[in-house]
């Protein structure tokens, strides 16, 4: 039954994942729109969403992959205090490739 990929089951699974993903994407807004007034603590939490979610998303990759990645993130972070995300990516990748090259 689960040898390789069963085509009918696969399409059902794909569509179930899609439905779940879309429900999540609409759900937050629909729940919030039902509130007559947004309490100040919820407002503060919503304002913190980009910081908390992006922070949780990238922290393990930066901290636990290896010294080259940690160094690249450090350089990129310093660049980011002055320059835009394009420069953060460009100088971060250069640092990463140099550090990986030196580290073997």
């Amino acid at each position: 039954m689960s040898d390789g990929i069963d085509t009918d089951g696969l399409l059902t699974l794909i569509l179930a994942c899609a439905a779940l993903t879309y429900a999540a994407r609409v759900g937050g807004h629909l729940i919030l729109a039902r509130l007559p007034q947004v309490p100040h603590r919820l407002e503060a939490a919503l304002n913190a969403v980009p910081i908390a979610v992006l922070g949780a998303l990238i922290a393990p990759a930066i901290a636990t992959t290896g010294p080259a990645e940690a160094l690249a993130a450090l350089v990129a972070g310093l660049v980011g205090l002055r320059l835009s995300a394009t420069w953060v990516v460009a100088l971060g990748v250069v640092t990463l490739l140099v550090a990986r090259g030196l580290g073997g």
Partner: protein
Amino acid sequence: MPVDPRAVPDAAVDSRPAPHPNRVEALAGARATLTILPAIAPFAALYGALATAAGFAPSDTLIASATIFAGASQYLMLDMLGQGLSSGAILLAVLAVNFRHVLYSAALGRRLGRFSTAGKALAFQLLVDPTFAAAEQRARTVGTLAPAWYFGYGLTVYVAWMVANVVGIASGRLLEDPARYGLDFILPLYFLGVLLGFRAAHGFVVVLATSALVSIGVHETLGAPWHLPAGALTGLAVAAARSRPPLAEATVEGA
């Protein structure tokens, strides 16, 4: 560039009207994706190649990308299918990585005042990490989020994702080793840059430190994908706990 004379009757006249503001906004949105496309395209191509290698028909891969349109969920599903895990386990894991979309949805919903109902429905289908971050930053710096800007950005990312998928399906294991070019680390670096753009926000350091540390701790113990909801929710709880009620007199509805 050849010009169709029927299409531009007044093009030679000097007093051309200024370009429509929607067009300006849409182009500005599309242009803003240029930073992220070099990071997204290889991952979308790799997904196409890996899905094909795992036995997905090209139609399965494209349907998955078009309907799910969430890189992390799609990779996770592929990985778990490869391990022979049950559909129930796969759906639970997809729910865990998708939880952040509930938060994006609630936060972005506040910026969609200028969108029609159908516009909102489409806007949420396009809501991936870079699009959320870019839209949120745009709304904070410009003070408003134009539908044309959002769709210029979001549809460009969507089309690029699908096109790169097709390239990956067609060329097999094109990018077998994205680490060789540092492509594997572009997304964390890009999100780091975007994250720093929010550093003037209230409680930035405390919220970031909390969510990052909890995320790393859970990642090293329970493992992925649970670090995401755990880190994000703890950070949000700290932000909520630090919030002070607005002064009674200063309850100006706005922003």
